[in-house]
């Protein structure tokens, strides 16, 4: 087991750890910080892989990740938090214990899915793939289990981090794909930002329960 693989691996683990801890956080500020750490570690992983695989594209991915997701998006999220005065907002969606246990269950499912289909692959790739899939699933779980629209966005962004993690682990992933995903995320973020403003104007809160009630009434 060479150092290259171990380090890449450890970074993947930290990305997953951040994804898991996102589930256990109630405060938006802490969630944003965790997301930022996750993105920075992801950027470091991309640089490391770029150095190991001698791929210029991966450096670019790393720079984009760092600039966009490590600095720009967290800044934007913090601005939203400040603007809507959500600094002390406490999330009260699903119970913490339940969502944590569900998170572990999802990681278990990811492992069980990846295991048989990649039995012949090198064990390290296997583990990386399992980690990436887990990060994606955990992000989706955050989106499902949270009520605040902002927390749902963070979950979405974390899901995207999982996809990038899978991409940098696979040699030969075209750079265009990653670049377009990054652009897509930025666009989505802008759209959602405007959307949030509109929600806020109408309902005076970012809690999506109000929208759900309207939906139900409409049916």
């Amino acid at each position, binding site marked *: 087991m060479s150092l290259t693989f171990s380090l890449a691996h450890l970074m993947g683990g930290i990305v997953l750890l951040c994804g898991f801890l996102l589930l256990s956080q109630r405060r938006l500020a802490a969630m944003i910080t965790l997301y930022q750490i996750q993105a920075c570690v992801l950027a470091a992983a991309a640089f490391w892989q770029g150095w190991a695989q001698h791929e210029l594209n991966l450096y670019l991915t790393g720079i984009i990740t760092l600039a966009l997701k490590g600095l720009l998006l967290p800044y934007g999220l913090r601005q939203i938090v400040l603007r809507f005065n959500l600094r002390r907002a406490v999330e009260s969606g699903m119970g913490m*214990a339940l969502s944590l246990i569900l998170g572990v269950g999802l990681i*278990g499912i990811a492992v069980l899915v990846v*295991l048989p289909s990649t039995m012949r692959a090198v064990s390290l790739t296997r583990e990386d793939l399992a980690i990436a899939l887990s990060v994606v699933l955990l992000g989706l779980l955050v989106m499902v289990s949270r009520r605040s629209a902002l927390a749902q966005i963070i979950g979405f962004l974390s899901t995207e981090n999982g996809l990038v993690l899978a991409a940098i682990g696979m040699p030969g992933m075209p750079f265009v794909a990653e670049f377009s995903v990054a652009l897509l995320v930025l666009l989505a973020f802008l759209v959602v930002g405007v959307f949030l403003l509109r929600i806020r104007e109408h309902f005076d809160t970012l809690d999506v329960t109000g929208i759900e009630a309207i939906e139900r009434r409409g049916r």
Partner: protein
Amino acid sequence: MHLQPDALSWLFLGILLPQVVASAVAGMRGSVTFWVFGLGMALALLAGDAFTLIFGFELMSAASWLLVLRGDERPATFYVTMAIFSGACLIPAVFLPASSVAFVLILLGTGAKAGLAPLHAWLPKAHPAPPAGVSALMSGGMVKVALYVLIRYAFIILAPAAQPWWGVVLIAAGLASVLIGALRAMLEVELKTVLACSTVEHVGLIAVGLGVALRAKAMGDETLEGLGLQAALLCIVAHALFKPLLFLGAGEVKHAVGTTSLNWLGGLVRGMPRLGGLMLLGAACMAALPLGAGFAPEFLLLHAIIGAAATGGILARLFFTAALAILGLGAALALGAAVRLFGMGFLGRPRSLQAAAADDIRGAPLMAMGLLAVLILPVALLPGLVLGTMTPVLLLLAPQAALPPLAYAPLSLAVLALLLAAALGFVLQRWGVRGTREVAGWNGGFGAPPPWLPFGDPATQPSATGLAEPVARAIGRGVLARDMADPTEAWLVAPLLQLYRRLVRLAERIRRATIRERLAFVFGALVVFLLALGLGEGG
């Protein structure tokens, strides 16, 4: 009637004997039912054929039912229902050939009798009901007889048909018992109910050990088989000594104070130092603390689970990892329960005048508890030696099992502790200021209590309920049903009771039918019979 004892029978008889002696000395020797109860257990253990086994087993059930009935009627009815269910499972099972069906029936029958989840709800109700001597023998002895039947059938008689999933089922039931038993022991307020819930937990630990061994035996893993069996048997021995000790102590508390509710006890060590010391020993064993009798089995069991998690497929490994977490939760809860039992009952300030004026035990009860306490010492300090004497039993149950020496050496730990204590004593004597001065407690700066409350206001002292409140709030609601009742009561017993009531109503309806309805019923039956006959002939 055919008696044919072997090493396993002798081991269990050896476990039974001190409890019977202690219970008899402690005040049960005048009761004929008590001796019939003991005789039934001995008969079941010595039995050489299935008939004798069942006869002894049912004799034990019937006698214990009478004894429970004398204490309290409601749990007795619940108890006899479970005993009948247990008998109904066991009787066909012992005559079936070796197969999975027979094992499932044996597991249901003995599990219902031993208090294995989910068939344990009766135990915390029935065990505390009779006098302390009987409670002691029920928790320490009767449960072991049920486990004896389980061990004999699972490891010897049904061995040719053994399947790995038998062990898995046993482990799962054991884990549920550990979690529910330990959690309820932490939350209950009655001293004897706490002890009964702790019995459920220990039965769970034993079942986990047996399950690991059973699974390993079916899969041909000698090391794990030996470890699991060692853990289970040592736990059986330890539990059969300290649980009767605690139950007898609870009886003495009831005798001296008039209640066993932890919310009304307190400060008993002051008036009852001898009982306090004996109960401290029992509680330390119950909490599975090192240098107590309960630690060596826990140690072996955790190692067995860790060993099981190191082999096999990924699903099995995940299962055993989860099992390890549950055992960790259970161990810490058991520690909390034991600390709460001793701290609330025997330390602090008295919560009632009776508790303040309690007299220490002497005479026969002291002798009975002393006997059990003396027997605990070798199990606590020389578990390796005890395991050595059990080798014939282990070889009988698992001829190929590897029996590694125990890696836990309580004597060496005790020597280290003594050396450190000597050094500590020297430092304190040489440089420290000697002697102590008795003053009013600081109590967060509150003033002294008024003179008419010599021990202060009992209401200002944390109660047993209050001590358990954080646990109840954090996990009690997740695991237990509403009002901290047992989950099986809500999910198993209540629906069954409802079904039973419906059936009764139906039977009542039939009994009250008019003559025309009865005629119609008979006529309908005739038509159906004819139809079946016709169809049978035609087809």
